[in-house]
């Protein structure tokens, strides 16, 4: 790396006099202003450009072809043909896949955010016991999706699983969980809430910790009950954090893949859990129809951008996660 090392030796002794004479050859301005900034940012920028930014645009290009993986030179141009195929694909239909993705995403937003807010309020104050509970609730998030999905396959087992044992103890009828069309997606959502909620709970706790105590106190002095205090004092101050959690949850849920792969072998009964993300993998990689997979990926990309832009518009308090 071509680093310009300071002007020779002896600089340190006479810095003071140099400054006094108004001759600041190596001023802090020189130190900071340098086109070498490109060089310093290059490693990160190159990784992003090479594996994220350029490939994203490349996806658009690939989606216009009947792509030949083994020999790309043999690919044939299809124009928007792959996108037309989206509308005529039947098993599962594109609309059903899209609906499944949104079902999962909305389910995660509603139940994930709701559960983590409730848990955060429960764990808000307190000493060792609450600290231990936080660690236990966070633990699933720190463990891999593959291993935990395998575990939940057994929990959801209709004959021998723990979920139905619980229902049995409560004198409720047994469910088919991941093996029936109507309960497959709720089962995956239940698993995912269990896996993710530790993180979002802590984000809420972080938000609760910085809410000013005085306003709550003032409300209590004025005779506010806990519910009114939450609704009129705490909740409005939590809005930016909630927006952040909703956006993060929606983007990760749109991307979710592993739990579908392992828990419902991708499709689930009658494709009840075939999501857009899974279909990109299945069509583009497993079945080798790269061009068609790319078209699906483009749709997924556009939906993600939409969610990100919504965040931009709603993120209060200066730019959300970003700058």
């Amino acid at each position: 790396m071509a680093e310009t090392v300071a002007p020779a030796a002896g600089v340190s002794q006479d810095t003071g006099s140099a400054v006094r004479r108004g001759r600041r050859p190596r001023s802090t301005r020189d130190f900071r202003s340098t086109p070498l900034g490109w060089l310093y940012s290059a490693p990160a920028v190159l990784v992003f450009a090479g594996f994220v930014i350029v490939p994203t645009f490349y996806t658009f290009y690939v989606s216009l072809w009947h792509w030949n993986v083994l020999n790309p030179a043999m690919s044939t141009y299809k124009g928007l043909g792959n996108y037309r195929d989206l509308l005529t694909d039947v098993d599962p239909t594109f609309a059903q896949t899209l609906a499944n993705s949104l079902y999962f995403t909305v389910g995660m937003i509603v139940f994930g955010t709701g559960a983590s807010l409730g848990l955060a309020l429960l764990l808000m104050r307190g000493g060792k016991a609450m600290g231990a509970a936080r660690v236990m609730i966070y633990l699933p998030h720190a463990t891999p999706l593959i291993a935990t999905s395998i575990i939940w396959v057994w929990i959801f087992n209709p004959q021998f699983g723990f979920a139905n044992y619980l229902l049995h103890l409560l004198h409720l009828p047994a469910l088919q969980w991941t093996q029936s069309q109507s309960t497959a997606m709720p089962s995956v959502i239940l698993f995912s809430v269990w896996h993710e909620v530790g993180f979002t709970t802590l984000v809420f706790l972080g938000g609760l910790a910085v809410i000013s105590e005085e306003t709550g106190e003032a409300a209590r002095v004025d005779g506010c009950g806990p519910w009114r205090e939450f609704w009129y004092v705490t909740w409005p101050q939590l809005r930016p954090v909630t927006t952040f959690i909703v956006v993060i949850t929606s983007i990760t849920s749109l991307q979710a893949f592993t739990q579908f792969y392992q828990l419902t072998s991708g499709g689930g009964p009658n494709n009840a859990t075939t999501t857009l993300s899974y279909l990109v993998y299945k069509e583009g990689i497993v079945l080798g129809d790269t061009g068609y997979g790319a078209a699906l990926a483009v749709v997924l990309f556009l939906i993600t951008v939409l969610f990100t832009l919504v965040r931009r518009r709603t993120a209060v308090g200066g730019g959300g996660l970003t700058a």
Partner: protein
Amino acid sequence: MSSSTLQDAPSPGHKPGDGAPSRRGGRTAGAWSGWTLVRKTVAVLLGLAFVFPFYWTFVISTARPGGFYRFPPQLIPSWNWSNWARAWDEAPWVRFFLNTLFIASATVLLCLVTSVLAGFAFGVLRFRGRNFLMLLVLSVLMMPGTVLIIPDYVLATDIHWVDTYWIQIVPWGASVFGVFLVRQFFVTMPQEILDAASVDGAGRLRVLWHIGVPAVRPALALIAINVFMASWNSFLWPEIMTNTTDVQPVEVGLSAFSSDVGTDIPGLAAAATFTTLPLIVFFLLLQRHFIRGALSAAGSVK
């Protein structure tokens, strides 16, 4: 990361409510501590419910033959370790573990280097095109991983990186989160420190190494933990990009094992346990950092 997130983020030990006896309001102290006891009990019970699946997996992993196939399910371990021995012998777990460790460590190292350099450039240096580059890096947040598997698979095939360590390390060797976390540390640190050193005639790389890196160390710890966990937990990418056990990480190995193993549920439970145990230990040792990282995520939206 819009504000000084980490330094003033509430640590788990910091309990805002503790110093606020006013919470008692009009209630008697007795009623208040009773209510606290109920809340604590509910919290701990919920916590136990969250870790129960891990416990139950351990129970199944030491069950006697056919242990899983019974109703009501077994809830107390039978301490039959033969399942562990059998599962351990049926797949190259040591190889998988070493692969995962190598891939995760190399990715962490690369991410630290790229984050420090770019964070320094974006936070300290002034140059034409800086804002453009920062926007470019931020735009990466909008480009989701699932979209990338198709073009990156084509690319990996092209440059003959399929089924190598390279494809599992280099594409993940930079982190937007990392770059901006380091930048944030540089922006919020006392500027005179860097300037003073530079006036003394030290080159930029020296200033960065001797003064910058120690100053951003808390950010580096957080980046290292995040990247390490993300690398260990990743599945879709290595599942697509690799096809031999020589380079596959442990989660891909576990997934393959789960489809090969058939009805040997105790064996699979043993494998799920011993592949997850290192992470659980890692998490428990560093839980303070994990929890502080998540707590501070809220600070960034404030």
